[in-house]
């Protein structure tokens, strides 16, 4: 969460790598608009290529494509935003700018002075990219043989030594990787990661290669080299890129916006295979009242209706619990997720959720605190200002069509929110608030996936029109376990359901009882789930 406050600027910048963090976080906030995020990444990567080429050589008309290698490398890293951040890229760009400035200083003494002073400053402002900057300055010095190079090289070495000796005193509470990298190039700042040093060395090698290789003009050789570089980049991206992760996050943001039909339409278009997307889909099915008719058209299991206690599952579960009316619990999981962010940053999205949950729970003073923070952000400012009056006039929350409804669903009886007993929580909720349709639907789904006909009958006695999957369950029970569940005996079932079940039972009798043979006709039925899941 980037705040437009002087305190935030000072607090962020006045620590090793702080300026890189500040610039990086300023840029990252624009990722709120996905196409803008993509545009920014493309721009920064192109800038990296331009700077690498400029640092390497003054020659124009290069077509070897070698200067694109660091950009491809970084693009591969950025496909895993759970580990790598944009801050490392920003920092590398600034380091290259420092090297470029060094290169263009023609006075021997001034260059030495720049080498001596810029490296400690660069480390403090940008973090560990001072290392490739130092190497590139030395490379630049060695390449330009016409220059006397002893003094500048000595100054660069002295700059490095000053940085190394001063760093532990400047930041006594940091050590190891956190001290070396300074800025949040990685989300796990306390862990060494060799990938970044490899990237830096690659950048230095590219600069060296571009210098020692003969000029590459528009020749077949240049074309081949360019194709090789681009193919390698493309293949690396293809290997590393995880589209599944993207679809999970897309699903999350769609349910966060309450675009239930969009979630369902997307799932119908492409069958989800991961547990989190199906978890989000189930919430959409509960919200739209479609669960009873089509939930088993998608792969289900008890996990797809459970509360997750780690990773991105926390986000999904917070959203689910919030919509079901479990406000304290939703707040808890949002908070847990934010606290478990490895780079220990605040998230505007989660702060906004905590503001909402506190407003609903009538904890207006703390909601006001969160909204006050959000007022200092770029993309949440407007929403925060709209909600702020609610902290002074709680009636505005009660009258709000969405928050007011959730507030009404707040439990009266105190009990422990134990996520391993979600059925208990749901049972209490629908007992106190039978009008909480979403919770009612969700509980129905829960009992269906947990194959509990007895509880289903007790809590959801079949009322016409009986949803399709419920009819399938009743038909199954009537055919297979009439003595175990006698109360289902006289419930009327569609003839088509009965016929389909009879066909299924006949097939099983004939030995066609494998998922493969039954799948084409029955994969979207409750019977298939009963038999094979």
């Amino acid at each position, binding site marked *: 969460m980037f*705040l437009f*406050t002087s*305190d*935030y600027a000072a607090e962020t910048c006045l620590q090793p790598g702080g300026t890189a963090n500040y610039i990086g976080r300023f840029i990252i906030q624009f990722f709120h608009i996905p196409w803008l995020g993509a545009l920014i990444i493309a721009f920064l990567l192109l800038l990296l290529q331009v700077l690498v080429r400029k640092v390497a050589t003054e020659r124009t008309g290069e077509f070897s494509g070698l200067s694109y290698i660091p950009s491809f490398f970084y693009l591969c890293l950025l496909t895993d935003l759970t580990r790598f951040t944009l801050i490392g890229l920003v920092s590398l760009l600034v380091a290259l700018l420092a090297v470029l400035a060094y290169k263009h200083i023609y006075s021997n003494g001034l260059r030495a002075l720049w080498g001596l002073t810029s490296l400690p400053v660069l480390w403090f402002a940008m973090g560990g990219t001072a290392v490739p900057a130092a190497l590139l300055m030395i490379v630049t010095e060695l390449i330009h043989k016409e220059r006397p190079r002893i003094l500048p090289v000595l100054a660069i070495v002295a700059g490095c030594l000053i940085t190394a000796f001063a760093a*532990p005193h400047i930041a*006594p*509470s*940091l*050590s*190891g990787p*956190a001290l070396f990298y300074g800025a949040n190039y990685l989300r*796990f*700042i*306390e*862990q060494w990661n060799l990938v970044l040093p490899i990237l830096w060395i690659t950048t230095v090698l590219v600069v060296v290669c571009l210098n020692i290789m003969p000029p590459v003009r528009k020749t077949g050789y240049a074309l081949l080299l360019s194709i090789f570089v681009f193919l390698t980049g493309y293949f690396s991206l293809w290997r590393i890129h995880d589209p599944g992760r993207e679809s999970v996050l897309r699903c999350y943001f769609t349910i966060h916006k309450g675009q239930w039909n969009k979630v369902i339409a997307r799932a119908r278009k492409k069958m989800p295979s991961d547990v989190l997307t199906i978890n989000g889909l189930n919430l959409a099915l509960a919200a739209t009242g479609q669960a009873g008719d089509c939930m088993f058209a998608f792969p289900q299991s008890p996990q797809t209706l459970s509360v997750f206690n780690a990773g991105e599952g926390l986000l999904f579960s917070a959203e689910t619990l919030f919509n079901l009316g*479990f*406000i*304290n*619990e939703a707040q*808890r999981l949002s*908070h*847990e997720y*934010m*606290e*478990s*962010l490895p780079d*220990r940053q*605040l998230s505007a999205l989660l*702060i906004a959720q905590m503001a909402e949950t*506190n407003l*609903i*729970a*009538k*904890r207006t*003073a*703390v909601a*006001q*605190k969160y909204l*006050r*923070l959000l007022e*200092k952000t770029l993309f949440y400012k407007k929403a925060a200002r709209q909600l702020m009056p609610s902290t002074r006039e709680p009636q505005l929350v009660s009258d709000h069509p969405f928050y007011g409804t959730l507030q009404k669903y*707040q*439990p*009266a*009886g*105190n*009990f*422990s*929110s*134990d996520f391993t007993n979600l059925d208990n*929580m749901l049972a209490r909720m629908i007992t106190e608030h039978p009008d909480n349709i979403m919770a009612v639907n969700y509980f129905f789904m829960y009992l269906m996936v947990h194959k509990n006909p007895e509880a289903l009958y007790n809590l959801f006695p079949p009322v016409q029109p009986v949803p399709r999957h419920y009819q399938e369950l009743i038909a199954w029970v009537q055919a297979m376990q009439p003595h175990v569940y006698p109360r289902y005996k006289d419930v009327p079932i569609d003839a088509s359901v009965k016929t389909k079940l009879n066909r299924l039972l006949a097939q099983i009798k004939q030995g066609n009882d494998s998922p493969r043979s039954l799948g084409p006709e029955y994969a979207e039925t409750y019977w298939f789930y009963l038999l094979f899941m």
Partner: protein
Amino acid sequence: MRVLLFNFLLVFLCSCNLPGRVSESNGYPPVIPDYINITIPHTIAPLHFMAKDGSPVKALITGKQSRLVSKGRYTVKIPAKKWKKMLAAEDSLTVQVYIKNNGAWHVYKAFSWIISRDPLDPYLCYRRVAPGYESFGSMGIYQRNLASFRETAIIENTLITNSCVNCHSFAAADPERFQFHLRGPGGGTLVRSEGELTHIDTKTPGTVSACVYPYWHPSGSHIAYSVNNILQWFHNVPEKVIDVFDTRSDVVIYELKTQRLYIDPVLCDSTVLETFPAFSADGQTLFYTAAPARKIPDVFMLDSIRYGLFGISFDPITGTVIPPAERLFPESDTAGLSVSFPRPSPDGRYLMFTSSSYGNFTIWHDDADLWLLDLSTGKTKPAEALNSAHTESYHSRSSSSRWVVFSSRRDDGRYTRLYLAHMDEGGTFDKPFALPQKDPRSDLYLIQSYNIPEFVKGKISFYPRDMFRAKHIKAQEWKH
């Protein structure tokens, strides 16, 4: 004549920065933090404040011999040097506040700052952490120079992945003798004493956990700890969020010289939950709280756990306790109160504790208040001037016994802030005031709580990297 002229000039120059046309408003100015009519130490940092609604604000601060006009447009900022001189020269200050609303300046009823000469320790040590549930992000133990706004980290959890630092504690506020726990990979208790840093594994076969809540013997020879099996209870009603409680707990005493952990049957009774040990100022008594141990099947049982306050004789020579334990404040049961955090004043006269309707993890209890026990008379009373409608929890006394710092959630009900208050010889507290910050808005934006505030007599010199060179020790269990 010259002096008169100089004073006239001074007043004129000072007044230049004040609004010209003002209209008078009744009542005290709406400012945050609430610094209206308080008693402050003569060595405290400038008390910067702002209008509640963020409007432009000015203040004229007047003493018998000096006066100054605040700096800043939206916050009242006081130049440090002038402030220091004023505090040294004056006994009290009058503060006149001007707030601009709807384009017009309003002047409010003046209030006073009484300057006390009772000594305040120069440093305050506390932890900053998000008030959360199970996970924790950024946290650290910090020291704050109380005469300025300078805060420095003693240790932050940036050193080791998934680590947590907590329970810092000092022997009689000595910056050279302290301890804190490091939880997580390679965790243990870090103890600095006699110039040596040791990393102690305090879990022994006979204890229910590694050592948890500490209290140093005033001589620095022993540290009393509780050992606790701690569980959390998550409420689903809007009025409550979380409860933290012990399923088992005992009190043990660690002797630094012999590295032995003393286990006494009186303090380690499996039918009793003993916790929050604290040595008396003379080191001859060990205070602690205790409640009958029971299984907690539901939330209603949780509500019925009430801790009483106990004291037992302690022999610093042998490092053992001498039964029987005496019940102090026995009326807590009938009053429906549960006691936690007993902390004697260094002069030995009073014992302050936190009291709530049940349990011992009071930070999540809105009804938690501070109480005072006069050890000379045995009389107990709530420290009414310090309490609010929200939680008051951890507290600590200055070495002079005249100042108390405590954590309170009065600002927003969730984020703990630190308040200081003066106490006179008769045990009467003045109105508490929030720990001054350079920018009074910083606490409004801070998404962390301050906890375990402890006064310290000087600056703590500790480099986190020293931890990696600390001597590793395994505590040895010892039964009398």
